[in-house]
């Protein structure tokens, strides 16, 4: 009970912001909140937000864990492109859906393994280590698709992008289920605590017997897996693999989602749920701007403003200043009481 309360308290700022954003949009566009049932499927702007936000939400799950270890994964956008290309190439060359999905997921995890080995074994700074795949990855994806948009018409694969389950679009079902599954995995086992310990103090964790190397590699593999799922969804959505544009700059959105979720870029305590809320906040703003008729490019300015705001709030200097104000305020209160 207590744990639930503290968890809700942790998520409160993100929930409040999300609700505020949704309310703000619906004030201007009352239609925003309308949901309709058609052919056993729910339609409406809110569902759209959940659906469009699927890739970033998935990436944010892996990114949360990687950032909790005090790392960062810049390659997820490129890995999305690779895995989308692998899935498209596999299905068009006649392999079964199961084989195709397994192959694409395995390739994503392989990319993560590569990053993880660079970070954990070769001890290269995460931002530099993952830059390699960020640069080369898109080229590899283009190599697979041979530069063209590789289209396919396998109903099964397309279903992942535009089908629905229990009235919800498949992408929404996938990120919700995957998010819950990973949250359960890290919180029902000791993984979450061990990852946090590793991110806060790697040396002390190693001295306490935590296998920090294995955990680090696993974090990057998870991030690769998330990118693979997001890549499959992105490809299925447009019925083709676009190596040039699939996942382009989504690594930055994913990092932003994690930061909006209130997770520290310096590692340690993390909340996947908060990152997912962060991803939805970003997507809701995107959709709101789209609805309001502003060019979608205004998003960028809003994103910049969000980052600056979070930077200011998280900055050690500003925090010290606030603490100082708080102290002097309470001191004043104490003085007033004495006067009375």
């Amino acid at each position: 009970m207590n744990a639930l309360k503290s968890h809700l308290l942790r998520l409160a700022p993100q929930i409040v912001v999300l609700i505020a954003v949704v309310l703000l949009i619906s004030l201007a566009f009352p239609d925003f909140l309308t949901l309709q049932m058609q052919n056993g499927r729910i339609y409406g702007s809110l569902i759209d937000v959940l659906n469009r936000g699927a890739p970033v939400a998935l990436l944010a799950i892996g990114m949360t864990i990687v950032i909790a270890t005090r790392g960062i994964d810049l390659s997820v956008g490129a890995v999305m492109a690779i895995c989308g290309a692998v899935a498209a190439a596999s299905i068009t060359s006649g392999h079964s859906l199961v084989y195709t999905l397994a192959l694409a997921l395995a390739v994503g995890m392989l990319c993560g393994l590569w990053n993880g080995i660079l970070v954990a074994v070769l001890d290269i700074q995460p931002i530099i280590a993952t830059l390699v795949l960020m640069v080369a990855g898109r080229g590899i994806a283009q190599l697979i698709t041979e530069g063209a948009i590789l289209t396919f018409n396998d109903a099964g694969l397309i279903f992942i992008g535009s089908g629905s389950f229990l009235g919800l679009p498949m992408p929404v079902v996938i990120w919700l289920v995957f998010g819950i599954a990973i949250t359960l995995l890290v919180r029902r086992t000791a993984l979450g605590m061990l990852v946090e310990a590793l991110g806060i103090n790697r040396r002390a964790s190693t001295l306490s017997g935590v296998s920090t190397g294995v955990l680090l590699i696993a974090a990057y593999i998870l991030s690769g897996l998330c990118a693979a799922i997001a890549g499959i969804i992105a490809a299925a959505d447009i019925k083709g693999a676009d190596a040039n544009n699939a996942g382009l700059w989504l690594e930055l959105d994913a990092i932003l989602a994690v930061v909006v979720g209130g997770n520290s870029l310096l590692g340690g305590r993390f909340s996947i749920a908060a990152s997912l809320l962060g991803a939805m906040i970003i997507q809701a703003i995107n959709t709101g701007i789209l609805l309001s008729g502003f060019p979608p490019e205004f998003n960028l300015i809003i994103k910049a403003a969000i980052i600056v705001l979070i930077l200011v709030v998280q900055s050690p200097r500003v925090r010290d200043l606030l603490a100082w104000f708080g102290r002097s305020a309470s001191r004043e209160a104490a003085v007033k009481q004495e006067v009375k």
Partner: protein
Amino acid sequence: MNPRYVPLAATVAIFLAAYALCFLQYPNMLSTRVIGNLLTDNAFLGIAAVGMTFVILSGGIDLSIGSVIAFTGVFIAVVLENTGLHPLVVFVLALGIATLFGGLMGAIIHHLEMPPFIVTLAGMFLARGMAFVLSIDSVPIKHPFYAVMKGFYYRLPGGGRITLIGGLMLLVFVVGILIAHRTRFGANVYALGGGAQTARLMGVPVARTTIEIYALSGFLAGLSGIVFSLYTSAGYSLSAVGVELDAIAAVVIGGTLLTGGSGFVGGTLIGILIMGLIQTYITFDGSLSSWWTKILIGLLLFGFILLQKGFLYLSKNKRRFA
């Protein structure tokens, strides 16, 4: 050999070997025409990469330069279209904005004690967003002065041309080398990269230097935007996407340590030329696809990171057992 020159020597060796290979296959590649084009085509990237070199030497990173290039281009095109200002005046305005923008990011990095990665990420979004606000479409630049500037070039024997922008890039590199090695500011940049804490203890003005570094990077990104607008005769808010990655790659392939403190501005020029050479080769070949550029650059990047890691490892061991 002094170990600090090893990565640079490796870069030069790779460049010469690559050029020799290209020459063996396509003797035409050693013409002044190809060399002149190499400079012209990579001018904007080279100028921006000089700024990136300073940022990386100081131990930071600047993700905003691609967006600043785009913003500058759109700004110039829109102002030229809507006012009667002379392009030179507009250039000064654009450079001023870009420099201020960079300095502001530097100030945030220093005073809010935030990682450069995330601050310049915000700068990247903001600059591109501002470019979109100015214009979403590609705005052509038809000012006669642009044609005049494009007419400036130095004819090399053999028919090649050093264009205005190609020459400007070389000039920026020369000035960059002077700043890096012959000014107190340059020494302070290396000092920051060697260790911000120690540099502070030794009296380096950390705040001022940090702001100046990012202002310089902003200024050069602005200059690069001007060059890019000359190169394309247009301003387009979706242009120069990902230039920051190319610039980072050029800096690292040029032998600069990504962790800061060690490297040369001159090396970045070689890095730019290696990347340009790969592209030229692929164009010459005709059958190779463009994606090999990215893959090769990624591999080079990986090779240099490993090389640097190996050196750090060796020098640490040497010191321990000395």
